[in-house]
């Protein structure tokens, strides 16, 4: 108990800090150990693991900040409320230079640290983090020259895929081999779509006239969900299908079967190109 003008005053600040410390000590381990493994995206690729780690770090950092404000507000509702009907003025405190300075320093430190950490993980650690980087990626993973190119073509309202290193065949199914760096070249024939492979941690806008590149490193085999994440008209919600990560031998078998199936039609396809310009748009119905 300190005193102000002879009146004993409880040490509100110390109490609030203690409550916050206890709650944070409980919350942060829970977030990291219990909630963390359930945060998205599922860990099928190196990129999605990086994204999940980013989500865990930020949740663990932001929840204590939220708790501090909440604990303070609830404490003040309980202890700083007017219990009578009378309208009585509180102490005329207009500010406190030290508290303001401390707040500015603390928030700036957190924000700058987040920005530096985010930039580092984006460029050096995660090599673009599975996001579309445009035709000339700034963050290239090692061995990007040998990545398997897969062209993803968005059109109203279907995804198709071309494999330029396998004769430029076009398929309606997406399959990629395990443990092989894949470069998705995302483009569109009509309006803007966004290629979202949830479990892969890949999202890249499909933009007409643009070759939008995203790298991904599959870690193990399985199914993943493909969706469109940018409103593209009437059947936007229906542009979803399952893709597959296959073991290398299974991928080879699949792609040669697809090549055989495509053999008779591949000559009718336009020549493989980074972008395509179909006839100028007409108004759709």
């Amino acid at each position, binding site marked *: 108990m300190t005193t102000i003008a002879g009146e004993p005053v409880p040490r509100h600040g110390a109490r609030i800090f203690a409550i916050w410390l206890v709650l944070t000590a409980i919350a942060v381990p829970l977030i990291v150990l219990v909630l963390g493994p359930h945060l998205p995206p599922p860990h099928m690729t190196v990129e999605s693991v990086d994204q999940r780690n980013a989500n865990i770090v930020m949740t663990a950092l932001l929840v204590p900040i939220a708790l501090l404000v909440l604990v303070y507000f609830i404490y003040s509702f309980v202890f700083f409320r007017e219990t009578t009907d009378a309208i009585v003025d509180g102490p005329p405190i207009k500010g406190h230079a030290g508290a303001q300075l401390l707040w500015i320093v603390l928030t700036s430190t957190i924000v700058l640290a987040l920005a530096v950490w985010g930039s580092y993980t984006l460029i050096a650690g995660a090599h673009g983090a599975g996001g579309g980087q445009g035709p000339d990626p700034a963050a290239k993973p090692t061995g990007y020259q040998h990545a398997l190119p897969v062209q993803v073509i968005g059109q109203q309202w279907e995804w198709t895929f071309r494999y330029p290193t396998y004769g430029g065949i076009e398929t309606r199914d997406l399959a990629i081999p395990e443990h092989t760096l894949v470069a998705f070249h995302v483009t569109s024939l009509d*309006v803007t779509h966004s290629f979202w492979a949830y479990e892969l941690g890949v999202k890249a806008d499909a933009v007409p006239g643009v070759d939008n590149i995203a790298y991904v490193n599959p870690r193990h085999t399985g199914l993943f969900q493909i969706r469109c994440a940018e409103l593209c008209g009437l059947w936007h919600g229906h542009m979803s299908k399952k893709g597959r990560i296959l073991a290398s031998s299974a991928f080879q078998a699949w792609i040669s079967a697809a090549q055989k199936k495509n053999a008779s039609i591949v000559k009718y396809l336009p020549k493989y190109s980074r972008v395509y310009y179909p006839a100028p748009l007409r108004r759709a119905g």
Partner: protein
Amino acid sequence: MSATPIAAQPPVWRRLIGFNMLTGLALGIGGWFLGAWIGGQMAVGHPYLQGTDQNDVGIYMGYLFAVIGWLVGLGFANYPIGRLLGRAPSLRHHETGSWTRYFRLCTDHKVVGIQYLFGVGIFFFIGGLNAMLMRTELLRPVEQAWPASQYLTLVSLHGTMMIMMTSAFILGPFGNYFVPIMIGARRMAFPRIEALTFWLVPAAGLILLSAIAFGGIATGWTGYAPLADEGRAGMDAYVMSFILIAISLTLVGLNLMATILTMRAPGMSWTRLPIFVWSVLATSILMALAAPVLVASMTMVLMDRAANTSFFVASVGGSQYLYENLFWFFGHPEVYILALPGFGIVLEILPVFARKPLWGYRLAVAGMLGVTLLSFMVWQHHLFVSGMNAGLRPFYMLTTELISIPTGFIFLNAIGTLWRARIRFTVPMLFALAFFFNFLIGGLSGIFLSDVPSDVTTHGSYFVMAHFHYTIVGGLVFAFFGAVYYWLPKMLGFELNETLGKIHFWLFFVFFNLTFFPLFAAGFLDMPRRVSTYAPHLQTLNIFVSASAYVIGLSMLIFIANLIWSLVFVRQPAAENPWVSRGLEWQVPTPVPIENFDRIPVITSGPYEYGVPNALPVADFAPGALPAAGR
């Protein structure tokens, strides 16, 4: 100013025509047909206009002439024509009169404020109704209630209407009504422009609603370009209404800026300016600088659609990145146009019911100006995965995260103001405190979106949608209702029922959080925005969200019931200063006289001097009686 002569009674023919909403509507409809005919004539001989199933030139000309007819019918041409004929300038005949002044051109800023309150309120409820219909569709994971095209139109109308109307949600009603009173002025700097800004809003709203009759809108509120070029005639309604709203916002911004800069009463120094007025000033800067960019980008869409230009058509040399960048260069300051007035309202309300001075006044001002500056430097965070130059991403990540520093100042102001306060939980105070809870979640969830690795998952998903509803609904709309409960007794002269107000608050607050918090999870679990079909395993979550959303709708009905009950049936006149506030706006009589003050007051003290020993009253209303007070 007070020497303005009282205008003579207008001639009989003018009183018969009336120059009110009805004449406006009549001339507007006539203008539509005239413009559509002219547009039809213009299209003759241009096969690319006649070759499609619609003539966009005719539609745009129709809308243009309809707006001109609407404004002429309301009487906006009378003053310039009168001046050309040599009549003396006068505002007075616009400022007197009966209840009918609410339905015609009126240059009294208080009338415009109330026009805005009800006009924007009506569109807010239409937009809210759209949300209820959307949530009905999402009760099941397959198409069921509406066909896909109608669902998309609902999504687009909800988004567009809410963004357009809530841009003027606080500056329209409360900015127009209270800023002149709070700075000790009798009117706004440009009263006729002020009236114009309001009357463009119903025109824009009605044009937007006309999209329903013209094949709907399929692009959402963002109207991304190649898709917008494909759209049917409803898209023309979107373009035209957004242009009108952007013109209105620009003029609102310029008008309020001029008013605050030049018309403050003697003694109203920058450090005595109410914090709400500071937030209006910051917002008006954003409006005047950002909204013209929207006019430009919408005009390009208009040209692409009507005149076959190719600003955004990739196959003939255009780029949709141009649209995305122009749109978000407007669009991101726009979200702070929505947020900043909310900061102002809650910091205005907090000291009154904490009975303490606003803690860290200068920090709050710095925070608002900092947000204003930074908000022009963050727009490309909407384009992190768009294929923009990837080397720019760390910069926009940094600026986006930096903007949380000045926003954090507002939280520190609240924390300091509540410290050892005497909090009274009135209805406006509850809304102001809920603002901080909601905005805390909204702001912190924004950090996930600013970090590129986690944005890759959350971009374009329900996570984004939950995030901006937490900031706009949880922030702006809660602040709006705080302002309604706080200021309506002064604006309309009657008390609102407190019990109904508290029921409204608790239902809204609890079910707002139950609606939008689960949507963060929906986004994390792979649900994209703007879809009418979704993964079946998310159905339980969506049913829960829809049910909560309906309760939000119910809480709004309780608010309307409260308005009708208090204003029509009980009619308990409000006290002049029911909250015992020091604000200048509470020291004037209720109802506020037409020119606000008999004499321009001299401001003698700041508005938040609660508990300060020997604090002077906030203003001297009969300057001259005291020797040289102030400054």
